[in-house]
């Protein structure tokens, strides 16, 4: 019962298809069922073009499902809502606004008066470590700084769920690792429910409490691993490496996922420690 009441976002029998060639429909997602609980960090792992970004856009209300439904707090989701924030790979900062204005944009576009949100924006800028860059414009920022601004802009309006579509994929390894730590800190401090889509296995294991693997088209959930143990926060831990290898093999041969039941039986108890 508790589990049901704490579900913030729920995908039920979700199908999505797009018109293809010769009046044929291309099925992108098929029978996706997924519950996301309040305050959790969920990572969705899948290969490029496998439908995971489509799933995220459906969850954000940017697309409508062909069939099935998405529930936000038990109510059917109809279009976008500020309760679900979205961060894209290309940060989509407004180039004519400086960092402060970009972070405060969510308040401004809703018609709030600056006096009501100025201090919140200032706190947030400090929080994301950009206090020295408040007056800089996006073209003066590094890729990592831009991504921090985009995340800050989304969490400024306190969404219940924050969706991130491969936010670090264009960044170099060092920067990506720093931002992964940053995102984890943000999640721990704000208790925002986070859903992150990635094709990077290491990132998916490191960040997620719950890991969903989406198979190739038609995209469907082929693996769901919950309750990550502390060893999965250490990328050099043997269990981490073992899971990483396993997930890589799952992605390569997602059609053979059912043949790995023996491995799953071995793996899942160790995750639930």
């Amino acid at each position, binding site marked *: 019962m508790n589990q049901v009441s704490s579900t913030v976002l729920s995908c039920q029998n979700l199908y999505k298809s797009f018109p293809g060639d010769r009046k044929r429909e291309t099925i992108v997602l098929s029978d996706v069922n997924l519950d996301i609980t309040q305050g959790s960090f969920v990572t969705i792992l899948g290969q490029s073009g496998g439908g995971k970004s489509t799933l995220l856009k459906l969850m954000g209300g940017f697309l409508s499902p062909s069939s099935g439904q998405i529930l936000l707090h038990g109510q059917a989701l109809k279009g976008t809502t500020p309760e679900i924030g979205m961060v894209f790979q290309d940060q*989509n900062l*407004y180039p004519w606004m400086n960092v402060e204005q970009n972070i405060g*944009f969510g308040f401004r*576009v*809703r018609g709030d008066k600056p006096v009501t949100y100025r201090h919140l924006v200032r706190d947030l800028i400090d929080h994301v470590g950009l206090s020295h860059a408040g007056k800089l414009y996006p073209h003066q920022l590094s890729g990592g700084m831009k991504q921090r601004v985009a995340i800050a802009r989304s969490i400024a309006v306190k969404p219940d769920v924050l969706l991130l579509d491969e936010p670090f994929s264009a960044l170099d390894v060092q920067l990506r690792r720093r931002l992964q730590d940053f995102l984890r800190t943000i999640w721990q401090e704000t208790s925002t429910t986070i859903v992150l889509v990635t094709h990077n296995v290491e990132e998916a294991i490191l960040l997620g409490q719950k890991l969903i693997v989406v198979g190739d088209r038609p995209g469907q959930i082929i693996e769901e691993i919950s309750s990550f143990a502390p060893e999965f926060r250490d990328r050099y831990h043997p269990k981490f490496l073992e899971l990483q290898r396993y997930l890589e093999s799952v992605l390569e041969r997602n059609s053979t996922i059912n043949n790995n039941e023996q491995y799953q039986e071995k793996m899942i108890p160790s995750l639930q420690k």
Partner: protein
Amino acid sequence: MLVAIWEWVGSNPANPVTQVLPPPSRFLPVLFESDFKIGLGSQSTSIHHSIFVTLLRVFSGMTIAFIGSLLCGMLISLSKWSELFILPILGLIAPIAPIAWVPLALVVFGISNLTAIFIVFMGVFFTLTIATVAEIKRIPENLLITAQNLGGNELNRWRMVILPSILPGVFTLLRLNFIAAWMAVLAAEMTGLRDGLGAVVMTGRNLFNSDLILLGICIIGITGFAMDRLLLLIQQKFFWWRV
């Protein structure tokens, strides 16, 4: 260098070109000798007044066209039907040279400031409106989605995202169209207006005074160049971003 060659060629009074194309040392003193006034008697007008009224006409026409095209372009973009029906009409009118509107403007407005402003407007408005629609189309969808996702209503999205996104592109085109507007206003002033830089050249023609014609042409060139630099400065200062 060019002025030096011109001066050297024109220094020989026997050269027939000198009669048509007097050197700067011959026509520039006209400014001081006439106390910066052009024309005869009560019909004379000062050079700085001529520059001022020409600039006033061209900038009035361009400002009205700029604001009008932004509004019209945004209104057209609101509906696919208006894009389908209105854009082809604009595309049909845009290539008409501004000078072709002069006879119609004279019939409607007579010889007045409005004629010149109307011709500048017609030379710029249609091109800018088409550009506005094109600029709206090329706004990255995610910029709009982000505003929508953050809870912005339709009006605020147009005001805070779409308008700033298109302003630099449309202003750049306005700057490029300044040359056309500048030529259009001069053509309008040559149709009988008493003042303005076009009228200076026409006065020179009426008096068979090639010094005055050359003086007018030089002022037109220098003022046009200065205005282009001013517009570039405005573009760099206020509309520097690209989406």
